[in-house]
């Protein structure tokens, strides 16, 4: 009997999400393999490989300009919207490549949601309409009662229900900055994403809103995998299970220098550059 040796390209990072069937419900695992990014001819990211396990919170840390946000945008196919932007490598959700056509791009974006740095509720919609806007936009149909339940549950998860339950008819932009961002989080949750990408969601907010959002992150992380870019190291320590430290040397594309459990990155980093960064010696 011959031993069939199936040689397949081995991912460079051992993927703990080796799920061969792509489950479209519940928290999903994302895997990035050797991702590189270009804006035109300029290479801004190189050799980025990262495993973002389901149900975990992964933080991307590092000084500004290292490509963290660019990497984040490759994870839900927003990077390609920039004219002249290209990328290399592969990105898998539950083991399925998101770029080579197996999953329609609108489905990719529905399953991998995003919360942006600047809150952007839709101005022409009320608070309630904003929450369920994702349903209309991605073509999901629900009954009226399902929709009402969804509004309440998403706003509750985002920690906003009590504050706006009597203001559901106000325009989305009538809320304060922190409330708007929580509204955007509720909006993203309404389409039942498997992964939620957050690009410095608290950087423009006051400490109270920041705290509430961090609470939300810990409450939903079991059912939604979270990848968060943050400049705030204390925040990374508070919310994340794993961290990846990005760095770009001058005129060089960004790379992951070190990644691992948060505790280890901050208390026992192996690379001297990581140690310098987490101790505040630059950044």
């Amino acid at each position, binding site marked *: 009997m011959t031993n069939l040796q199936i040689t397949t390209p081995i991912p460079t990072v051992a993927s703990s999400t080796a799920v061969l069937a792509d489950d479209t419900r519940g928290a999903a695992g994302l895997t990035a393999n050797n991702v*590189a990014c270009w804006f035109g001819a300029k290479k801004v990211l190189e050799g980025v490989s990262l495993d973002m396990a389901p149900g975990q919170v992964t933080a991307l840390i590092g000084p500004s300009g290292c490509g963290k946000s660019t990497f984040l945008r490759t994870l839900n196919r927003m990077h390609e919207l920039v004219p002249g932007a290209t990328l290399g490598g592969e990105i898998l959700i539950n083991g399925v490549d998101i770029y080579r056509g197996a999953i329609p*791009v609108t489905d990719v974006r529905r399953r991998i949601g995003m919360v942006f740095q600047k809150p952007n509720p839709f101005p022409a919609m009320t608070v309630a309409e904003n929450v369920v806007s994702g349903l209309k936009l991605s073509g999901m149909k629900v009954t009226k009662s399902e929709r009402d339940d969804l509004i309440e549950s998403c706003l509750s998860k985002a920690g906003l229900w009590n504050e706006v339950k009597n203001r559901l008819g106000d325009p989305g932009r009538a809320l304060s900055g922190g409330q708007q961002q929580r509204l955007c989080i509720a909006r993203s949750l309404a389409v039942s994403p498997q992964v939620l990408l957050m690009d410095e969601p608290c950087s423009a907010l006051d400490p109270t809103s920041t705290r509430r959002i961090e609470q939300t992150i810990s409450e939903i992380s079991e059912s939604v995998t979270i990848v968060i870019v943050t400049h705030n190291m204390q925040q990374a320590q508070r919310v994340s299970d794993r961290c990846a430290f990005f760095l770009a040397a001058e005129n060089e594309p960004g790379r992951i220098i070190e990644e*691992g459990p948060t505790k280890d990155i901050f208390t026992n980093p*192996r690379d001297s550059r990581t140690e310098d960064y987490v101790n505040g010696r630059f950044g």
Partner: protein
Amino acid sequence: MTSVADVSEVNLVDETRVSPVVRRSKVDRAYRAVATLSGSIVFVVMALIGGFLLYRGIDALRISGWGFITESQWAPDMGGAFGIAAVLPYTISIALVALFLAVPISVATALFITEYAPRRLRRFLTATIDLLAAVPSLIYGLWGLFYLQPRLITLSKWLADNLGFIPFFEVNEDFGTSLGVFPSSTFVAGVIVSLMVIPICTSVMREVFGQAPPGEREGAMALGGTRWGVVRDVVLPFGRGGIIGGSMLGLGRALGETIAVTLIISPSFDAKWSIVEQGSNSIAALIALKFSESTETGISALMAAGLALFVITLIVNTAASSVVNRSRSGSATEI
């Protein structure tokens, strides 16, 4: 344990660039198709218009040859010569008179709105200027003809009597300087057209002045400058592109003004230096007055003239946009 990226590790996954597969849904494809169709229709229609004008115009130019530029008279229908050697200078002189009055007033008005007026009034004043732009040129023409012209010609007479040594204000000796010599002149037409040009210039300049960097303003004031100092040293230099661009845009408008000019002037085909003496013309007025009595050839000739006007206006407008865009104030301002 953290893992540190090791560049020596063999990367088996290819780094070749990915072409993301974008399969658009049927709805999206239909949407894009409709939008593209609309754009194509507009493109084709506008290209057709330009092409038709060119085609008929060239027909006429074939008949007139270079005489189109040198000939003053306009008699294409009787096989006579026709040319814009008189009409074009008249068009330009009306526009220049209009600009001469409109530009200083527009600069003052724009400065007034952005610098001198109480802040609460700013929206109201801007709305008033926009309203001035919305009033039909017909109304301006009527008011100019019935109200302003009788009063303006006394000024024309004064200019002819006292400054007659300047060629612009000279009056042919045979005519004398009774009031009847002065209506329907370039000067009167120019004054009326300036009223229509002012809102356009003011809008552009106001937008540009409003964008003068507050940092520089504060710097000037912190040095003890007066409001005029801030205007002279910060706002006006910054807004130079807007002043020039706005004026050029106004020039384009003045060149193309039809109705007010048609109502006021009495057509003349002998170009002259004097702007106060009666008799004037403009390409637009020529078309308006001559079209009904023109044969095929005549229409072609009018098209050639119209094409000339169109091309000149196009050049002026394009130059205006690029001046504004290239200036410091430029890119945020829409012309």
